[in-house]
């Protein structure tokens, strides 16, 4: 826990000091919302279309943070520092996933109200949306930390991360959209199959947390 706290604290301190990821994610999400607004030529969205726009936007904004997640470890010797220290290397995976989860939560604090402002007639479905976003963030964080590590070890980091990550995220996108769709229905939030989709999201999260924990040590080998 000490190593996890040290790495997470370091990452958050650096992000607060440099603001390299969060503002870019928020601006990117805003730009996507504006693009959707003009591309769809709609001032109001509901149901599956609203769910698709929200989930896709969060996913694309997450890619920005994923591509930068291990930059300091790769370029400033962080990988070596951690490999020289008497710590379980999965602490690095856990810390990076936790940092990404926090970035995503911070992004959503800005992006979801903006989404409501751009596209929703009512904010009634936003409260239960929190449960979905918590699970979506865990899945994105676990997959993102894993893929970012693999991409960082290659010379084509920026290209590789989205190419590997997007196909892996398809189950998460399906489950997240399925859970969000009834919450954003025109007649107010519904809960049709809501629990089932949350369970699928939870399962996805568990699988990728377990895979990350199992393989991360090997990924750091030379």
């Amino acid at each position: 826990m000490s190593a996890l706290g040290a790495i997470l604290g370091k990452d958050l301190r650096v992000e607060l000091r440099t603001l390299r990821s969060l503002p870019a994610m928020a601006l990117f999400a805003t730009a996507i919302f504006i693009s959707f607004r003009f591309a769809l030529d709609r001032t109001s969205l509901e149901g599956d279309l609203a769910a698709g726009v929200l989930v896709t936007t969060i996913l694309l904004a997450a890619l920005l943070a994923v591509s930068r997640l291990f930059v300091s470890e790769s370029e400033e010797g962080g990988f070596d520092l951690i490999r020289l220290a008497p710590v379980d290397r999965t602490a690095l995976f856990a810390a990076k996933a936790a940092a990404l989860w926090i970035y995503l939560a911070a992004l959503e604090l800005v992006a979801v109200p903006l989404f409501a402002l751009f596209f929703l007639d009512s904010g009634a479905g936003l409260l239960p949306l929190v449960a979905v976003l918590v699970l979506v963030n865990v899945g994105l964080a676990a997959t993102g930390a894993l893929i970012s590590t693999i991409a960082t070890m290659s010379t084509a980091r920026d290209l590789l991360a989205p190419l590997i990550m997007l196909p892996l995220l398809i189950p998460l996108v399906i489950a997240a959209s399925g859970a969000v769709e009834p919450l954003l229905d025109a007649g107010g939030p519904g809960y049709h199959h809501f629990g089932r989709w949350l369970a699928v999201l939870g399962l996805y999260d568990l699988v990728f947390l377990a895979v990350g924990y199992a393989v991360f040590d090997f990924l750091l080998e030379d």
Partner: protein
Amino acid sequence: MEAATQDPTTPPETSPGQPALALEGLSRDFGDRVALGPVSAELAAGQTLAVLGRNGAGKSTLLRILAGLLRPSGGEARVLGCRLPGETWRLRGRVGYLGHRPLLYRDLSPRENLVFTARLHKLELAEAERRIGELLAHVGMERRANSRVAELSAGMVQRVDICRCVLNRPELLLLDEPDSHLDQEARELIEPLISATGTRARVLVSHDRERALAAADLMLELG
């Protein structure tokens, strides 16, 4: 997973008189390219091994293998009684590694970097902060201790990286050009920090042949 259930802080059972370093035909290839030819050497505790050789001879590769950062392709290596690569986990926290590139985060200050390293090495915080203050003062960096590393000169960064390297009082120092970017005054300041002592051995990579040989008990010429 590599020895995840074992406590990596447990010191190995070393026998009296056991060498700090014992290498037999150690080599490393990257595909078809030989990065390090077969190397054999033995170093006792408290001794200095100078590693010399032309550019690309494998000096840095050797240090990275000895630090447990790179797997050897062939041969045998025992570092502080730990067989590499199988017992690398037992070596962690016992070796001080100073590479070509500083292992410092550019957006943190020297003090923050050293506190981070101390936390990774599970040092007691109050004691670590006292030692960090002493080390920074020793290398003349106390006035810039809270500046970002990105704002420091190359020589200052090297001084801080040396503090990072010795912070956890390692039993073996692996030093790749420790004098680089340092002026004469700074070299004299860091010398006591990175010298071999009664129990601490060191491997010293240097292009300054005369200086390395003057400091060494043994010499290894690569390439």
